[in-house]
């Protein structure tokens, strides 16, 4: 048990160090608001993509509807902070977004999660589009014009902490009894069921957890950007999250981080290429996939535990 404390401590120190590093860089002026913008976008994408990776990579359920849940969180925050324009209101709005997205995920997931593969993908895509179209036609959401002048409560420290928190939740979920159950569903539903795993329940658990982190990302997106519109949450947004997951490696959270950073930086750098940016982006995407078919990192994970035990083994060998 002492070992566990040690590993957790290392992770904690890494997170705090990362925070200080960023803070210092901002104070020194290395990170200006342009780079900060990029980092925040990357952070939000990490939250979205780890959640989707949980659903696709670990539970093996091909969902293409992540943007819909993101939209729920974003609009919850936009609407709530319009009247309750305080940090408290903002955190309450995140919570409300999570609750609504959980309900939506249950409504979508209970019937559709029995579908397989591409059929599930298209059903979840449809569900997400339905959410978007409803938002597009509602009064409270501002319709197609979306909402702007949303008060900004999510600055980069908020996003940083939320990235840490959601990642901790998802990673701890994966490395636990729940995560094993979810992975067994991915591997073989029939065998899992025969071993006492309630397949429906665990699929749903992963789906709901992924959806609620997407809602958190949506809240951050709305509050940081201060403007949202239904078109931000279309099929293309779901696809761009999927791209991060696959590019990083389906089933690797570390990979998701790497891919989110790589794509985020790539996208920002390409901003200098004007009209060619999307052409280069597309070509890069194809080439990476052809030369790295299982994603940048495959299923490799960074693990402090493994590093420790490896160095220990080395010591033993040397002595």
């Amino acid at each position, binding site marked *: 048990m002492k070992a566990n404390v040690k590993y957790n401590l290392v992770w904690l120190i890494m997170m705090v160090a990362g925070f200080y590093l960023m803070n210092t860089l901002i104070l020194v002026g290395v990170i200006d608001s342009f780079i900060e913008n990029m980092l925040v976008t990357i952070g939000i994408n990490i939250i979205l993509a780890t959640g989707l990776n949980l659903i*696709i990579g670990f539970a093996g359920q*091909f969902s293409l509807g992540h943007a819909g849940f993101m939209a729920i969180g974003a609009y919850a925050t936009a609407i709530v902070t319009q009247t309750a324009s305080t940090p408290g209101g903002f955190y309450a709005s995140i919570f409300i977004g999570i609750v609504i997205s959980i309900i939506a995920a249950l409504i979508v997931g209970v*019937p*559709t999660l*029995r*579908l*397989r593969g*591409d*059929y599930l993908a*298209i*059903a979840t*895509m*449809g*569900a997400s*589009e*339905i959410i978007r*179209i*409803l938002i*597009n*036609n509602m009064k409270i959401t501002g319709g197609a014009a979306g909402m702007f002048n949303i008060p900004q409560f999510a600055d980069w420290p908020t996003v940083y902490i939320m990235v840490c928190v959601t990642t901790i939740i998802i990673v701890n979920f994966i490395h636990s009894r729940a995560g094993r159950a979810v992975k067994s569903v991915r591997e073989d539903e*029939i065998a899992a069921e025969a071993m006492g795993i309630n397949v429906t329940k665990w699929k749903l658990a992963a789906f709901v957890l992924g959806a609620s982190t997407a809602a958190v990302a949506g809240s951050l997106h709305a509050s940081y950007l201060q403007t949202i519109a239904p078109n931000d949450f279309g*099929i293309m947004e779901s*696809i761009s999250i*999927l*791209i991060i997951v*696959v*590019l990083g490696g*389906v089933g690797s959270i570390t990979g998701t981080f790497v891919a989110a950073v790589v794509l985020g930086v790539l996208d920002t750098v390409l901003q200098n290429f004007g*009209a*060619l940016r*999307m*052409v280069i*982006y*597309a*070509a890069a*995407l*194809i080439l990476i*996939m*052809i030369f790295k*078919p*299982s*994603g940048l990192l495959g299923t490799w994970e960074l693990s402090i535990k493994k590093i420790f035990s490896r160095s220990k083994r080395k010591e033993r060998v040397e002595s």
Partner: protein
Amino acid sequence: METFFQQIINGLSLGSIYALLALGYTMVYGIIKLINFAHGDIYMLGAFWGYYVINVWHFNFISALLSAMLVGAASGVIIEYFAYRPLRRSPRITALITAIGVSFLLENGMSYLFSSNTRDFPQIIKQVNYHIGGVLISNIQILILVTACVLMVLLQLIIKKTKMGRAMRAVSVDPDAAELVGININWTISFTFALGSALAGAAGVLIGLYYNSIDPLMGMTPGIKAFVAAVLGGIGSVPGASVGGFIIGILETFVQSIGLSAYKDAVVYFVLIVILLILPAGIFGKNTKEKV
């Protein structure tokens, strides 16, 4: 009553367009289980090809159509060769991302090279409207409807009656076994892509002619709709794609005619989900149970 029949015609002609595109999706999916995201963009290429050859080289309709099919087929084969073939043994989701990449590349590449402006498609066939009992139908609508039906039957014949069709079916069931009995898998898959993409090329010219407006992003929306149609009909099934296309066309028309135009896509997706819940593999899809 006239309005009702007119709406049926509207629905059928919209449906025939979706069906035309869905056929290509379903063929490719049937053989390599890949959602060929770039299919809608091959349709766009076909439309642009038609636009240029008619305007610049003054092709007539038939030669524009046939050459667009050739261009579609060629681009389909090239895309398959460079982007999908290296990934045939990789997870399917990888190939899907590549397909999305190809789609982005075609859309943005065309925008970059030829600008993203909308163009008017040359009206090479003069539109003639027929009034039949108060219902209006144009010669181009009939042309598209007939083409969609003929192509469907033709495809079905190719798949069921020809040697190539047999090879295609064999590869789709079990590529390794097909290879063992002497079927050239690469050649068969290329052929399927050529066939499916030729359909998209033809659709580009026909739809360009019908709507008279083409742009580099024109493949995106109908591409997704056609894909939904293919799934609805049971992806991999040729009659399924047509039926799915017509269902979605008629459904969209119906929803708009009762005044819910703002929700037309939502209703389409809702019906899709409901149908999938009842028939998990679409209307004509075979729901293969896993053997325990």
